[in-house]
């Protein structure tokens, strides 16, 4: 798995543990769920918690 995702390509399945502030609970994010629910997704990467934008 050395290829990075390219524009116009299907993104491979993503599954990540999450903290959801709206429920105050841990959960999971799965890209497959977004596709099932026909939702757009914006993935917003950033370096580190407790640091400064």
């Amino acid at each position, binding site marked *: *798995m050395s290829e*990075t*995702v*390219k*524009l*116009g*390509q*299907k*993104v*491979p399945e*993503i599954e*990540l*543990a*999450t*903290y*959801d*502030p*709206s429920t105050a609970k*841990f*959960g999971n*994010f799965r*890209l497959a769920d*977004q*596709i099932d629910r*026909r*939702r*757009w*997704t*914006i*993935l*917003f*990467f*950033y*370096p*580190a*918690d*407790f640091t400064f*934008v």
Partner: protein
Amino acid sequence: MKMGCDVVTVSTDTQFVHLAWQNSEEELAEVRYPMAADPTGKVSRQFGVYDENSGLALRGTFIINPDGVLTNSEVNFYNLGRNIDELMRKFKANLYMSRKPAEVCPSKWKDEGDKTLVPSEELVGNVHEALVG
């Protein structure tokens, strides 16, 4: 975001750190989107934003459509924040064009109602007239 889009933030911190940070930082009190954990860097590497030297993710934003296709990518180095208005503009443009696949959004397009272009043989060499006319 209320337009059929879900924002998910990702860093290489664990979900426990996300909890602690969201609880303690006043700036994050209004956050209602899931905060994802990528401590192995697996997903960050898939998107080409993993920095092997630091173990941290660069400032990358990726828009994925409801078919799971990557439609936009923006990556900044650590020292430059991303502009949220620009992100909104790009998302709205993607949403609009998914409903109007024959149209494209030129550089000044900001919101629905702004001028778009329809690529065709007639448009070649005539973009100025199409935008101004």
